[in-house]
């Protein structure tokens, strides 16, 4: 059952990428710690995490949906997947070369966490990282269900896009939330800077890797 295996692998990648985004302080978990401490209430933390999750989810779905609408052009499937892979690689290369942080993020009001999370995910190509994985899932799905009408295929893909974004965002929130709770309840703020690693290069390389995988999978199988 090679198809089932690769399907499981792809969903695994969705979850893994979520955990990966979640542990990156640049995606916002320190803001959840800050919110709880600033308000002096435990319940401020889940609220902040929810806002960060909402922004991240919107950024994911905002990137995935256009692709889900595109992929019903079945005869162009391979080209679309290769194009998407190239786009993701290009974003990674861009982030490798341009190591500057987008200054407009610093103008977002600190209480508007959902907006900040959305913009941060967009600026760092977090949604793009999911595209090759998502397209892989769609391609396998299309094969399994046989030749559906274009409309049914698109509906399937839209459902898949939402599922991918939800699963990914859930994994991200879980990872970031766990770190935030541990720092807030047990380790203390000293560990906030200790757990903070510069992931800029790793992040850019991840985009290139995922993009490259997308091109490979589209060209030679799934």
């Amino acid at each position, binding site marked *: 059952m090679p198809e089932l295996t690769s399907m499981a692998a792809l969903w695994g990648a969705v979850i893994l990428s979520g955990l990966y985004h979640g542990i990156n302080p640049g995606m916002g978990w320190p803001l959840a710690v800050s919110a709880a401490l600033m308000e002096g209430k435990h319940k401020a933390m889940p609220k902040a995490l929810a806002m960060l999750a909402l922004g991240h989810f919107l950024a994911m779905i905002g990137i995935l949906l256009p692709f889900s609408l595109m992929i019903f052009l079945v005869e162009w499937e391979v080209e679309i997947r290769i194009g998407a892979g190239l786009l993701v690689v290009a974003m990674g290369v861009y982030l490798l070369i341009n190591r500057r*942080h987008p200054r407009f993020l610093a103008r977002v009001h600190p209480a508007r966490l959902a907006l900040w999370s959305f913009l941060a995910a967009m600026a760092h190509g977090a949604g793009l990282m999911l595209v090759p994985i998502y397209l892989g899932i769609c391609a396998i799905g299309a094969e399994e269900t046989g030749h559906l009408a274009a409309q049914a295929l698109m509906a399937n893909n839209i459902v898949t896009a939402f599922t991918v974004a939800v699963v990914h965002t859930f994994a991200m929130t879980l990872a970031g939330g766990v770190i935030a709770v541990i720092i807030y309840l047990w380790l203390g703020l000293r560990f906030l*800077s200790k757990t903070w690693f510069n992931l*800029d290069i790793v992040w850019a390389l991840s985009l290139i890797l995922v993009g490259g995988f997308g091109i490979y999978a589209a060209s030679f199988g799934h």
Partner: protein
Amino acid sequence: MNLRPDPTFHASPKLAMQAPVENYAFTVMLSPDGSQSDGIAVVDVNPKSDTYGQIVHQVIVPNKGDEFHHFGWNACSSSLSPLTGHAFLERRYLIVPGIRSSRIYVIDVKEPLKAKIHKTIEPEELFAKTGYSRPHTIHCGPEGIYVSTLGGGGEDGTDGPPGIFIMDCETFEIIGQYEMDRGKQDKHYDFWWNLPQDYMVSSEWGLPPQFENGVVPEDLLSNKYGHSIHFWDLRARKNIQTMDFGENYQMALEIRPAHDPTKSYGFCGVVVDTTNLQGAIFTWWRDEDGVWQSKKTITIDPRPEKPENLPPLLQGFEAVPPLVTDIDLSLDDKYLYVACWGLGEMHQYDVSDPMNPVLTGKVELGGIARSTKHVNGKDFAYGPQMVEISRDGKRVYWTNSLYSTWDDQFYPDDEGGQMVMANNDENGFHLDPDFYIDFPKGLRSHQIRLEGGDCSTDSFCYPSV
């Protein structure tokens, strides 16, 4: 760029207090008449070192007439906000503006004993990109490095209002004006903020013709210096409220917000109340309706003096005004230090209750018509001026010069630059007899910065818990 946040970035004021203490201080050296080049003195403040209390390195700039005054770091604890996206900057460069020349030096102090000039920004570039002149206070914040200026455009800096401009925190390129809506603000001096609460407060000294050639007595007596502070929506870059202390409260200078970001109050020092020559500290705070309020919480009385003992400027008043010219708040928000440059006193107030400060200590040193000697028997020119507190709150450093032309008016017979230190320990607030630095001949001293940050540089994004 580092792989980890700079170890001198601290999430909260409390963590900054617990961090290793400073080994070096960086102090401005200025030539009052522009006959020598200005520089930064690197001072050894490690008591275990053989060169403790000595200037161990000097960065002397190639130009003359810059008049160094205030300066600051390229990066501080504010970088630990993910909102900022600059967690991996290094606290490595001092941004040192010339208040008279409008030239800005970026000095690399990664190795304090080999500190050197990294970049120079010429005045023409500043004028062209911002329309401002006479750069002053430096703070690192969300959008990069923020610099307040005292002058607008034109030869005498009165063509348009002064304001704040932003510099890129990595390339040190000047980006442009900060303000999008400055409201009533038409003069400038200091500014600081609360990053999570997203407000900024700015203050007013006077326009360049009111200070460059000395204090203008007619302007002071007709209350033409600044007497308002301005509250800003920091990220929207908008003045949301201007608070006038009253026109007799001349020269509202240093802004010291509580370091703990959960608190919404701070202090502002006023040089002189022209109705009675008192010095004053206002506490400002945000009320339950979100409106900013203020109240005068400290007054310091002038000291009567015979006219023949006074400089010509003060003879008619027969008194020495306190001249509150700098204040600094310890990182635990407990002690406020108030420099009374005229009286020759450094006051320590317990401001645990910011509405009811209590005088807890006092050091007498220098002063108009008093010239109190240091406990080690040495002279101290002028009076206590720029004050900086160690992060742990145990050592308080200060220098003596206010501003070249003003020194000469208030202390016509004095000359020289000194830096001293007082301990704040179980014996209270008292001068350390072993720490006394006499600056090289012809140079005066002004602001001090401490290695790893101090009590007037770092802004914190997380509360002390």
